[in-house]
């Protein structure tokens, strides 16, 4: 069995080390590019959301490389994601990939037997190894997050911004040749050390921007046209609200041990949206409030076009914007891959925030409400 899985940002690092530890042969799909998207959208419904199309493209790339089974997670929430599996199976069959097995890991409450059988299929008789491998993979997730946070900190302050990009790309290249969680953790540590050696300008006081929105488009750099990197190179320190680790912790580990996930976000979003409506829309609003409380200077919401839960949070966020005086840029991503308009919008947003931020007192956000556009040049 050659197992493959769709890309979702850095998720492949953790999934690879998990499958390596269990001892399952797996193939990392080629990194998502516009050709992947074209491949996927040629056999997708017209108005389905972006992740569906990209995932389908990932599968086909992997199948061409020799994979014969696909591992995805499922859900039965009110978001469309829950129905991806059955429809994608159908789409692949219609496209001529007949004997591809899609293994869907639905939440156990939908049927414990089904869940157990899916796990058995994945592990292939090695299921005693699953739990320790899972814990190690979670450790990898945590380390990847701390690596990312280091990158977020260094990137706007780095003297030579090309250098950090080289290190990050080198890291991505090396992940493919790494086997198991032990080697993976080592690799991450080496990369961290390399990044720490980069020259930074400590006198800078960059603006801070939080990225919120739909989890797939926030995590996957192809879909948001590298928003993190772009903002970092424009001189903003970014923070990503949702990561693979957060997802695993709040939807797998905490519920499995009888606790509830996303407690803080749910508490903060209660005045705006008191109930769960699906997707991560409550979490999106909760994160917005949380970032505002932490003193961030601006937020960027990213979501795929026609995403149902995020449309709801998009219409609530202007109220958060008013209540907390924090500017929000809304980016709706789709199959477009033109970067110019996107870059301009990000630049304008960063300029707007920098101009409105009082230079003498960087932490005083209250003063910004009354500031106008012409308070001075950036820096």
């Amino acid at each position, binding site marked *: 069995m050659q197992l493959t899985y769709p890309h979702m940002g850095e998720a492949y690092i953790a999934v690879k080390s998990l499958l390596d530890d269990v001892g399952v042969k797996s193939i990392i799909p080629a990194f998502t590019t516009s050709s992947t998207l074209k491949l996927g959208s040629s056999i997708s419904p*017209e*108005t389905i959301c972006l992740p569906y199309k990209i995932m389908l493209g990932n599968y086909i790339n992997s199948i061409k490389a020799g994979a014969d089974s696909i591992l995805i997670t499922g859900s*039965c929430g009110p978001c*469309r994601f829950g129905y991806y599996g059955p429809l994608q199976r*159908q789409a692949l069959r219609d496209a001529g990939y007949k004997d591809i097995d899609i293994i869907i890991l639905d939440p156990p409450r*939908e049927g414990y037997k089904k869940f157990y059988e899916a796990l058995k299929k994945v592990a292939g008789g090695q299921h005693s190894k699953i739990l320790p491998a899972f814990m190690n993979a979670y450790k990898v997730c945590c380390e990847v997050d701390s690596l990312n946070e280091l990158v977020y900190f260094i990137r706007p302050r780095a003297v030579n911004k090309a250098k950090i990009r080289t290190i990050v790309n080198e890291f991505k290249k090396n992940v493919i040749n790494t086997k198991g969680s032990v080697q993976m953790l080592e690799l991450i540590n080496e990369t961290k050390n390399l990044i720490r050696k980069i020259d930074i300008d400590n006198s800078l006081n960059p603006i801070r921007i939080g990225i919120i929105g739909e989890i797939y488009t926030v995590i996957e750099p192809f879909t948001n046209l590298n928003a993190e990197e772009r903002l970092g190179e424009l001189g903003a320190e970014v923070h990503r609200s949702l990561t693979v680790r957060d997802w695993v912790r709040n939807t797998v580990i905490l519920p499995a041990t009888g606790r509830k996930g996303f407690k803080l976000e749910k508490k903060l979003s209660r005045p705006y949206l008191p*109930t769960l409506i699906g997707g991560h829309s409550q979490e999106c609003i909760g994160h917005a409030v949380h970032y505002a409380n932490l003193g961030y200077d601006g937020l960027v919401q990213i979501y795929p076009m026609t995403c149902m839960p995020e*449309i*709801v949070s998009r*219409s609530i966020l202007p109220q958060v914007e008013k209540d907390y005086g924090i500017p929000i840029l809304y980016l709706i991503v789709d199959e477009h891959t033109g970067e110019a308009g996107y870059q301009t919008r990000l630049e304008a947003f960063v300029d707007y925030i920098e101009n409105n931020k009082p230079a003498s007192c960087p932490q005083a956000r209250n003063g910004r409400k009354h500031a106008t556009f012409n308070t001075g040049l950036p820096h």
Partner: protein
Amino acid sequence: MAVKVGIPRGMYFYKYYPFIKTFLTELGAEVVPSPETTREILDKGVLYCIDDACLPVKVFHGHAYTLRDKVDFILIPRLTSISKSEYICPKFGGLPEMVKYSVPDLPPLVDTEINLIKNQKGLAKALYKMAFLLKFKNPLLIGRSINTAIRAHNNFMAAVHEGNTPDCVIASVPRRQYKSKIRIGLVGHPYLLYDNFTNMDLIKKLRSRGAEITTPDMIDPHIINELCMELPKRMFWSSGKSLIGSALFIMDRRSFDGLLLLSAFGCGVDSLAGEYIEKQARMYYKKPYMVLNIDEHTGDASFNTRIEAFFDLLNRRNSDAANLSAHGRSIYSS
């Protein structure tokens, strides 16, 4: 003076209006529904709603805006779920907030949550809560009103099952016998099918061409449930379920000549349900099938052309196609 409660004519209005109207009138409130959709209402909705919401949500915003200075309360219940372990659509769950934060100068909203995801008991609880919000404190009266409302709802459903469209039932227009040559199934969400402005009088146009129409609301929900059993995965949207179930029902029967799917651009449920129906229609059922997509546009010339083409297809199949194949088996019947 009785408290005035406004009900926007959008979303599930054509499904639950008789129920909620009877409930509130029995309690002693005055019910004010918003007028039928017009150009102005649509324009106001487009103005206040965010850009990438779907058409029915925009229309709903327009209706809420029209009601704003006529009533004391606007009723926008949060319909999280209307049947066990099924949701409707995330936008229904967030509808009160979407309207509250988008439309200015609104009177207080009654946004009681109706959530039957676990069991049916939640309904009575939610209705009590709604009545308390409107300052009706007599529990006996509320209980009696609920019973009357359920009876009214059952009568309404019975009238719809007989073949009258819900908008006619609500306006108490009796069912007219049409001289029908053709029988087609018209599948879609109630807020698109019966809103005669946004769908550009689709039902009238179809009937004037001599077609008899069956919509999902006219089909027994038990049959729909049964047909949805054969889906590869449990469908967790009741709106998608009624779409798929009724489409399968219509395609299964020889008495229907064709199937039309009315969908709004950007509808999340339709993008999945429509895809499933299309795949089934192409693979197993050789029945004419067409998708009509509507948006904010109001020019109906191209819309008419497509309907005309569909009818040409149906008529030619009925008159010219020989239903006998070399194998001795009919190839065009399902």
